[in-house]
């Protein structure tokens, strides 16, 4: 249809082609057990990448997602620990409350005090890293058994959390595509001034985006905690940048406006698939980083060649 949806096609093609190649070329990739495992591994990346995408669409960036992932796990592990009373309800309330607060502060720093999103969320990252280590200097705490069961529930071969996550993210994708909020999100990312002249309040839209990102990151943190059964003050670090990689791989433009949540979902799955395939092939960790970096750069270069050509024709 338009350039927005064409940006989504690339990542989805990449995902499908990659999956077909992996199915035929990589032993054991296609087994139900591995596919379930691969999707389960992808859940936190999916959640953080979609949150990141909402922020990037407003021409912002959220570097604090990794720290929020950690914070959610740490809070959950502390409050669910029988030594501290062990209330699941209280723990979930505290996690959601903390995420709301962090997202709100991120948004206010950017909107009210005019901090560049990069700086505001970088500062938040350091702040939260300190908080996390203060609350839990070494991995520990205890996730309630019943909550651990939530993450490992399977319907046949299919992990329930994967289904719930994909349904949630699909709902977000549709929501962003068709609602007032989604339209304003993209409008602010394209051109904040023009959006304001059209009657949109960029401040509200941006704050909402950072809150959504923080909430999704906290869900990722809860998921990881429930799988591992404890809290870890460093567990979320890798999502700070891999959420951005997944979004960009999904065709989301770092300058805002362009891209879709569908693309980001595909991007996150591609990134997770690369990790899974390399694991199956027994490739050592540093090679995995090299391959991921390579794929990211090639994909982004390809996107910009395709979309750049259209633009330059308009300028002449």
């Amino acid at each position: 249809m338009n350039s927005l949806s064409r940006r989504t096609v690339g990542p989805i093609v990449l995902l499908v082609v990659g999956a077909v190649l992996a199915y035929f070329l990589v032993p054991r990739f296609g087994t139900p057990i591995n596919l379930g495992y691969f999707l389960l591994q992808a859940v936190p990346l999916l959640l953080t990448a979609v949150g990141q995408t909402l922020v990037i669409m407003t021409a912002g960036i959220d570097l604090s997602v990794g720290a929020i992932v950690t914070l959610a796990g740490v809070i959950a592990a502390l409050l669910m620990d029988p030594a501290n009373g062990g209330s699941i309800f209280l723990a979930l309330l505290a996690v959601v409350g903390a995420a709301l607060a962090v997202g709100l502060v991120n948004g206010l720093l950017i909107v009210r005090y005019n901090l560049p999103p990069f700086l505001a969320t970088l500062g938040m990252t350091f702040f939260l890293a300190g908080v996390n280590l203060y609350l839990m200097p070494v991995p520990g705490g205890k996730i309630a058994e019943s909550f651990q069961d939530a993450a490992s529930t399977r319907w046949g071969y299919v992990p329930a959390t994967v289904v719930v996550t994909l349904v949630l993210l699909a709902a977000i994708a549709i929501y962003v595509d068709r609602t007032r909020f989604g339209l304003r999100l993209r409008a602010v990312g394209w051109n904040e001034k023009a959006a304001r002249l059209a009657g949109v309040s960029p401040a509200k839209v941006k704050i909402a985006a950072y809150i959504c990102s923080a909430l999704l990151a906290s869900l990722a943190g809860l998921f990881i905690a429930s799988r591992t059964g404890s809290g870890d003050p460093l567990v979320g670090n890798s999502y700070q940048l891999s959420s951005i990689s997944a979004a960009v791989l999904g065709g989301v433009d770092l300058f805002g406006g362009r891209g879709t949540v569908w693309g980001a979902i595909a991007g996150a799955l591609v990134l997770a698939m690369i990790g899974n395939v390399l694991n199956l092939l027994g490739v050592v960790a540093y090679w995995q980083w090299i391959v991921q970096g390579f794929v990211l750069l090639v994909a982004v270069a390809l996107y910009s060649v395709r979309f750049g050509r259209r633009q330059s024709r308009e300028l002449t």
Partner: protein
Amino acid sequence: MSSTPTTDQEPAPGRETAGAGTDRGAAVSAATGGAATGGVALLELRKLTKAFGATIALRDIDLTLDAGKFHALLGENGAGKSTLIKILAGIYRPTRGEMLMEGKPLEHPTPALLRTLGLHIVHQDSSILPGLTVAQNFALGQEPTAGLGFIRRRTVRDELAARGRRFGVDFDPDMPAERLAIGDRKILEILKVLDARQKLLILDEPTASFTAEEVRRLLAILRELKAQGTAILYVTHRLEEIEGMVDRVMVLRDGSKVGELTHDEAVQERVVSLMVGRELGQMYPHSDRPPGEVLVSARGIRRTGQYEDVSLDVRQGEIVALVGLAGHGSFEVARGLSGLPPPEAGEILMHGRPIRLRSLRDALKNGIGFLAEDRADTILRVRTVRENLALGALEMWSRMGFVDTRRESDEAERLIKALSVRCRSQNALAESLSGGNQQKVALGRWLAAERRLLVLLDPTAGVDVGARAEIYKHLRAFAADGRGVLVATSDLAEALGLADTVVAFYRGRQVATFDRDNRREEDVLAAITGQTAGKGAA
């Protein structure tokens, strides 16, 4: 402008029967009576003053706007137009004075309140987002929603089509807005604000970077709107384009209203002298010497899809203007002569010898200076006036790669004086200058660099009338020194006034050439709209 004057037009039939309030009826009849004093004005400002600290931006402004009338607000940049608009939009609160809508005082008008009262503003900066579709742009900011915030797309489309029908325009709702022409974007913005409550439409410099055709289409819509009883306030610093249809002209200078003219009194010279506060003398300086030898010529140049078989000369001392509708070749040829991009075939000669011109760099080497139409592309906003002036001549002013700062500073001082650039000092940032002064700095860059030919695209777009006259003077002086100027412009009046030779383009071909003695505006207009194809060169 060829339209017939439409003074005191009767309100459209059906206006009264459409159930407009009695206030409105009174305002309309008062307006048609030709006097604002008898009835109730749609909007009235009394002794309005706005001060920012010690600076008075507006002083004791009285202003009356009537339903079904076309009002123009004119003034140079900095005269207080923007402040006045922001007050009318509810963004600023006046320091003193009253604002009345249909006779009732507005105490603390907010933008939202004014909108519900039927007062809408189309701002100078576009609110159209190129990345969204036409329908999405139309809905943005006022989206009709079903539950959960989902947009009612059908409603949006129907409303867009309905409003389009009202003015005889037709938009494809699914087209990305980036494919809309500049003029259509503005029209879409107007459609957006024209809801059922519409009473007053304020347009702030709507036609910047419009083609002549786009201006005509916009004015046709405004004429229709006026006939339907809406008051229009049109803010501009160019009277020419609305001369035929304006009912009342208000002129601002230095924060005060210096004149209010009726349709018949509002003639160009009078308004301009009110705006600038002095007689400008001639807007366009004449050259007293005939042009000299041929400086640069193009022979049969062509670029696929843009222009073909173009041959023209620029002589020493001559200003040549290329005119045509957007996309018909005039701007493209001018760019071609600067290597941006170069022609694919044909020859370019300088002093009769073919030159190699494959890029802007080649053009610069051959003494050709180029100024693009968009000042964002020519001025470094966050660098100083001095640095901006020095850009074209850095090599000349350098020794062994180091800029001779003493010389740079002296030359900058000289140019600022010569061009009468109004700036605090040569160390002022370019962005602190008005549009006209920025353009003078951009021009100064090439005056410093000792060019033989200047190629300019729309050199006075968004430049107020005082600065325009100065820019014309400098261009003429530049040419008089045995050099040449090639201007591609979308402003026909500018081409006719400024240039010695006007070359008209239509569908990528030069269709006519006019020298000083044989040109009338109608003929040039006919040539660029393809109505005299084959009549040939003069």
